[in-house]
């Protein structure tokens, strides 16, 4: 099953002749694209500037006094004196530790959520058992529950388990499933043909073999899309890691960025350093997007519209 249905109109692909009536729409669309994309250029431009010179040349389209000092600062390669001379705050950011934590947090919760949600989706789509629809409705209903409502009690639970400021505590609420993943995969599993499965059963295969050798390989594309979306979501997660993972050895990048920002003295923030850190934090998502952009874009139609 494709993620989005093909458009009705086959003429969509035929090249259009120039029409004056389309000039204004194009201008508006380009404006919308510019507003979406140009701020990212400004991150790059600022991160390659010398912080001390930004104030005098605020509108320059090119980096001001081009240098990599801001990145050196973020990576901890610059001495405090150097940093202050370039307009840095002298504040430290344990960038490599936060990066490592973000990678671990996002990868483990994604791997777990996708795998366990696939197992559940298999039970909901391919197995017959009493109570199936009731249990599935319970999963669906939790999609409507606002995270803040469960976050406070979940914080207490993680604390009671002694898991505050541990990676296990950070990952635990996400790793067993996400309601969206269960729903998403169930849709795909429902649409898979039964014949191969039945043939395998005749050969004596049990559910585990069917799941691992037939269902999972045949659902590689939707599984990959889901993993991609989940990873990006987890990479960007802020609230839960802020509550549970606030000590330096488990702090993730989003939380670290917030801390880095608040360390800048109010008078003169280290804009180049901040933008360099922002850029590097966004880099994994930007890279994934460059590689799998089409998959991500096409999955949007799925999330709401059939």
């Amino acid at each position, binding site marked *: 099953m494709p993620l989005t249905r093909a458009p009705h109109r086959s003429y969509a692909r035929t090249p259009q002749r120039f029409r004056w009536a389309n000039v204004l729409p194009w201008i508006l669309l380009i404006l919308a694209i510019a507003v979406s994309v140009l701020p990212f250029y400004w991150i790059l431009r600022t991160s390659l500037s010398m912080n001390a010179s930004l104030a005098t040349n605020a509108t320059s389209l090119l980096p001001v006094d081009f240098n990599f000092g801001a990145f050196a600062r973020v990576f901890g390669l610059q001495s405090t004196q150097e940093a202050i001379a370039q307009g840095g705050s002298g504040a430290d950011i344990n960038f490599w530790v936060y990066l490592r934590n973000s990678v671990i947090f996002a990868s483990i919760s994604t791997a777990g959520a996708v795998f366990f949600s696939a197992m559940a989706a298999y039970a909901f789509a391919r197995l017959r058992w009493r109570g199936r629809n009731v249990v599935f409705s319970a999963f669906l209903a939790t999609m409507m529950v606002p995270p803040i409502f469960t976050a406070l009690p979940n914080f207490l639970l993680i604390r009671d388990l002694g898991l505050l400021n541990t990676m296990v505590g950070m990952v635990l609420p996400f790793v067993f499933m996400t309601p969206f993943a269960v729903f998403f995969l169930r849709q795909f599993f429902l649409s898979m043909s039964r014949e191969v499965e039945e043939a395998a059963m005749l050969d004596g295969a049990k559910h585990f073999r069917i799941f691992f050798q037939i269902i999972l390989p045949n659902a590689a594309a939707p599984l990959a899309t889901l993993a991609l979306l989940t990873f990006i979501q987890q990479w960007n997660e802020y609230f839960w890691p802020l509550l549970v993972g606030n000590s330096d050895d488990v702090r993730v990048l989003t939380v670290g960025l917030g801390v880095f920002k608040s360390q800048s003295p109010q008078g003169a923030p280290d804009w180049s350093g901040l933008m360099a850190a922002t850029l590097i934090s966004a880099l994994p998502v930007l890279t994934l997007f460059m590689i799998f952009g089409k998959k991500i874009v096409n999955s949007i139609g799925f999330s*709401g519209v059939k």
Partner: protein
Amino acid sequence: MSSSTLAEQAARQPAVPPRQRRFTRPGWSPSRGDLPAALLFIAPALLGLSLFFLFPMLRGVYLSFTEYNILGEPTWVGTANYEAIAQDPLFWNALWVTIQYVLINITLQTVLALGIALLMQRIARSTLIRGMLLLPYLMANVIAALLWFWLLDYQIGIVNHLLETLGGQRVAFFGSEQWAIPTQALINTWRHMGYTALLIFAGLQMIPRHLYEAASLDGANAVQSFFRVTLPLLRPVLALVLVVTVIGSFQVFDTVAVTTQGGPVNASRVMQYYIFQKAFTESQFGYGSALAVILFLILALMAFVQMKFMRGNQTDLD
């Protein structure tokens, strides 16, 4: 052909037809179905559901009737928290501020997204364009917040320089009580408008072309066919977009936490930020839980009313 929300699609999804059993597997009996295997397969997910969704919901409601400073044991205080909330000016302020944010957000976002979707439908459907519009949505809220904190800086932010060049005045986007909430809403609109446009665009693709041909044969112009054909048939998609936007924007937290932290004074202390402060900064977990219950009830009510009002589960295409 229909467009509908996740939940309805799922509900409408026909149960898998009982398959013909042409063979008997060992260990299988008709009365049990696949129950043992199914239990094994849903066990991890069910554990997650009970431990981190169902149990915390019950516990959250219980805590809202207690006084609890995180240490020690919660003491039952009945409805005292709710009574205190009713007379808490900061709560009413948070609610009012959040409502302002939601209103600015949904209006701006829906109108802009609808416009962009119509433009794409009319002149360009390329994946590249859609991808560029989606880029802000993929960024963390924290990144969007820091980026705009820089762009909108009062002294050397590029936006204020542009405003001045165009003959306007500098605006203290984050520093003035008047602008704090609209600014938060603008950041959020920037992040979400492309995503929302893609949802609406997907809905537009579902409208059969012959309806427009029929309308134009009847002498309808572009504006008329927009209001008579496009808008009514988009209703289910718009209902979904509205529900998602409202529920999402009631829970604004990240951008506020990174930029204004509720200030200046209380101008941007939105509900979720207030809950966070009560529970974690002031260690009033019972009070915070009661606030969370209220937020939850508001969201549930909004979703219910919206779906009813917009008749989101029906489509005129059937």
